[in-house]
């Protein structure tokens, strides 16, 4: 049973692409066949985070327009043989994606993979609507920040009205993934805490990804954070989240990053 999952957010820069790559790799590592699809036409980045930027020949739009066949555009991950990437085009017109065309590609992907992870562009424009259109499940990525939570609320509204499932009167299963969380700052009341966010968004929690230098380190070298350093705090949080996606019950812990003495002294924080 193939599952289509959209990774979405209202606000940009909250970690959708990082999360798509990390969750995709974690699912693949546990034996599922996974494809991550970049819907961010014009601003593609999933290829870069996955370390496949130099291997892109054909892309999603080529497939939608019938210029290339799906197998020609799919890129197999260098590290995991059951993880694939369908990249987005950087140069083409955004309107090249059509509802019908996307539907066809998703249907074809469903016959080949267990999981189809769609990395959505930020915002509420057409690109974001198309990325969520055929979703069975949604991961709403949010930071503990007022602007991010507010925009997530809009996206949740869209998931409940603009998806094929919603139009058929069915539900898109929604999860909130909180990224860049700093438990110490939340404890001091400087940052919205988990309960506040969940109460405001009224959506169940998939995971809490701690603020960590490992996230940037992994994207610098083009490796999903779950593969780059599986023992790091964010990797463990993403792996737990992927197990919850597969229906496992995993206790929710907030893995804190261990900070060195000098870092503490200088008050350094991951960018």
């Amino acid at each position, binding site marked *: 049973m193939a599952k289509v999952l959209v990774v979405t957010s209202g606000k940009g820069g909250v970690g959708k692409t990082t999360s798509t790559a990390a969750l995709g790799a974690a699912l693949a590592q546990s034996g599922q066949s996974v494809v991550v699809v970049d819907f961010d036409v014009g601003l593609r980045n999933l290829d870069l985070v996955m370390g496949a930027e130099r291997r892109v020949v054909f892309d999603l739009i080529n497939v939608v327009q019938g210029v290339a066949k799906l197998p020609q555009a799919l890129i197999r991950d260098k590290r995991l043989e059951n993880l694939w990437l369908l990249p987005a085009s950087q140069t083409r017109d955004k309107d090249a994606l059509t509802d019908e065309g996307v539907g066809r590609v998703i249907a074809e992907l469903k016959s080949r993979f267990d999981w189809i992870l769609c990395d959505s562009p930020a915002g509420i424009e057409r690109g974001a609507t198309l990325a969520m259109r055929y979703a069975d499940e949604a991961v709403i990525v949010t930071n503990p920040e*007022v602007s991010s939570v507010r925009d997530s609320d*809009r996206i949740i509204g869209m998931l409940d009205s603009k998806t094929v499932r919603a139009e058929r009167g069915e539900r898109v299963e929604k999860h909130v993934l909180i990224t860049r969380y700093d438990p110490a700052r939340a404890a*001091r009341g400087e940052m919205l805490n988990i309960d506040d966010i969940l109460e405001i968004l009224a959506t169940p929690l998939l995971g809490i990804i701690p603020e960590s230098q490992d996230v940037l380190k992994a994207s610098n070298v083009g490796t999903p954070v779950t593969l780059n350093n599986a023992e790091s705090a964010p990797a463990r949080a993403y792996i737990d989240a992927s197990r919850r996606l597969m229906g496992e019950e995993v206790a929710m812990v907030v893995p804190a990053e261990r900070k060195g003495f000098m870092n503490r002294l200088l008050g350094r924080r991951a960018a």
Partner: protein
Amino acid sequence: MSLNLLRLFSGRNASAPVARERLQILLAHERGLLGQSDLLATLREEILAVVSKHVVLDPDKVMVKLERGKTVSTLEVDIEVPNNFDKKALAEKRMAG
């Protein structure tokens, strides 16, 4: 008042309770508005369709606005009709009259 108390009890740096309160108020307001804007979009479309049957209209020149007051709410519809919109229809009317 409650904001001040929260600040007092949770130390000077606790801005999160303020964030939470601001978000709750804002979202309660926005959720209401968004429900409305769907209604407005529907109204606009349908009014446009009906009027377009008889008059050539520029879709951008049709404005529908809903204002909610305490006792009375008003629905304002503003349609700009081109100057020479239906000379033919007018002529036909005169012939009949």
